[in-house]
């Protein structure tokens, strides 16, 4: 019954009512990431404004509840933050996900994303949670390189 604790109410809520879903203009960079083992995919756009402030993260994709909810949470967490701030959240989220359930999550940094802690115990699902976050990291890095 561990797996059901993976499906936290908050995750199911984001899955059923995704925040900020849909691709929007304007954007600086668009990336497309795929999880080849399960076919989950995401297209993600980033618009960075003055002083490195994220103006919009828009996305579209298909996949399981974990991958879709993770994209929705990402959208919420990035809104109004600077690139630098969001990258440190991405790093903390990655650390949590790759911790095989042994890592204590920093709720102050992660906010709602802490709901994904249970996913870390399922190596096969970690990639689902990370898909949109890795796409986001890729997009902002490319955006900065422009």
């Amino acid at each position: 019954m561990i797996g059901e604790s993976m499906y936290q109410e908050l995750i199911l809520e984001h899955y059923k009512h995704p925040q900020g879903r849909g691709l929007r203009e304007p954007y600086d960079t668009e990336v497309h990431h795929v999880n080849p083992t399960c076919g989950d995919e995401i297209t993600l756009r980033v618009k960075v404004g003055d002083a490195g402030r994220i103006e919009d993260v828009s996305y579209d994709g298909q996949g399981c509840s974990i991958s879709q909810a993770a994209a929705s949470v990402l959208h919420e967490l990035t809104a109004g933050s600077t690139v630098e701030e969001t990258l440190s959240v991405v790093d903390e989220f990655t650390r949590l996900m790759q911790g095989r359930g042994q890592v204590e999550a920093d709720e102050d940094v992660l906010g709602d994303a802490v709901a994904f802690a249970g996913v870390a115990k399922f190596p096969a699902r970690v990639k689902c949670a990370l898909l949109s976050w890795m796409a986001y990291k890729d997009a902002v890095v490319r955006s900065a390189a422009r």
Partner: protein
Amino acid sequence: MTSTSLDVERIRKDFPVLSRELPGGRPLVYLDSGNSSQKPTSVVETMREHLAMHYSNVGRAMHVLGSESTEAYESARDKVAAFIGAPSRDEVVFTKNASEALNLVAYSFGNPACADPRFTLGPGDEIVISEMEHHSNIVPWQMLAQRTGATLKWFGVTDEGRLDLADGVVTERTKIVSVAHQSNVLGTVNPVADVVALARRAGALVLLDASQSVPHHPVDMAALDADFVAFTGHKMVGPSGIGVLWARGELLEAMPPFLGGGEMIEAVWMDRSTYAPAPHKFEAGTPPIVEAIGLGAAVDYLTGIGMAAVEAHERELTAYALDALREVPGLRLIGPDSLDLRGGTLAFTLEGIHPHDVGQILDDRFGIAVRVGHHCARPLHLRFGIPATTRASFYLYNTTGEVDALVRGLHHVQKVFA
């Protein structure tokens, strides 16, 4: 339980894993045999006994153990040959899996080392597969087309999940037609006689990927009348690491070796070699000895039960499951919903719920092992406009009680995501 002549409760005792408990005290409900089957004690013990008491290399060791190992390895070939009705034991080539067998055949085409006109392949020539193939019967042919400039074509799949043998796919330029005997997703059993007739008219050779049929039905090489048949041991209660290519003897003779090395030769000079006759020509290096012997034991086990009885049992389970799944709201079966020309593999989607979530909850809450994803048949899923399915696949040890558990599990999944 079921009313077939199969004593399922007794059979289940032959498979120790089926009575184990999963963490949390859940019983195991194994509905993933299409992926890989479980192993009976006789297979495990045969392999253990051989490793412990008789093991040595085969073919080349001139001592007691060498001869015992060779005897056991070659007798596994005899058993497999008899099991599939091969006209000759020398037509049974051991490979490491079905993928290797399929690659071996693909490698023979358009190969400068093979002058036989049936295997010549170049620009303008055609390779025909189908949209329902496993990646292992797609990718080797894409690679061959890339190497030779030949054209890759395919039969489509109907909405019901049947092979669409439309006119114009096979032409006089077709050199090889390679299709699944039974789909690993749809469960569809393809009309081999029709495919063979089409190919023969065009002068093309026929390869059957029988990975999903040989474990579940009585299969006879002479009756099938194909040119090549590939299957694998681990789906038929045998170990992984051992597969089989059956091919007509005169074709094996014409085909070039696939891998070079020890034991596949007749004589070697510094600048050239001559090759051993088939099947050894295709078995370079030390083979998977114990795995082949394990496959022999698997064949003994299945023969003891009787493949007709296995088939009848799975048919009954499939009928029961088709009825039961129809009652699940929002469930869309991908594949034929009648018993006509179909095996015990049921793939489906649940509206609004991703298969990975279905599989996760079935496993974690109920100990039900199904496969989720595209099952190495991505083009087929694209054809149906879906990224993935949940797949339950049955074998001789499954029960209607397990089908009931699956249905209960699916209702629970729907509750979680309601």
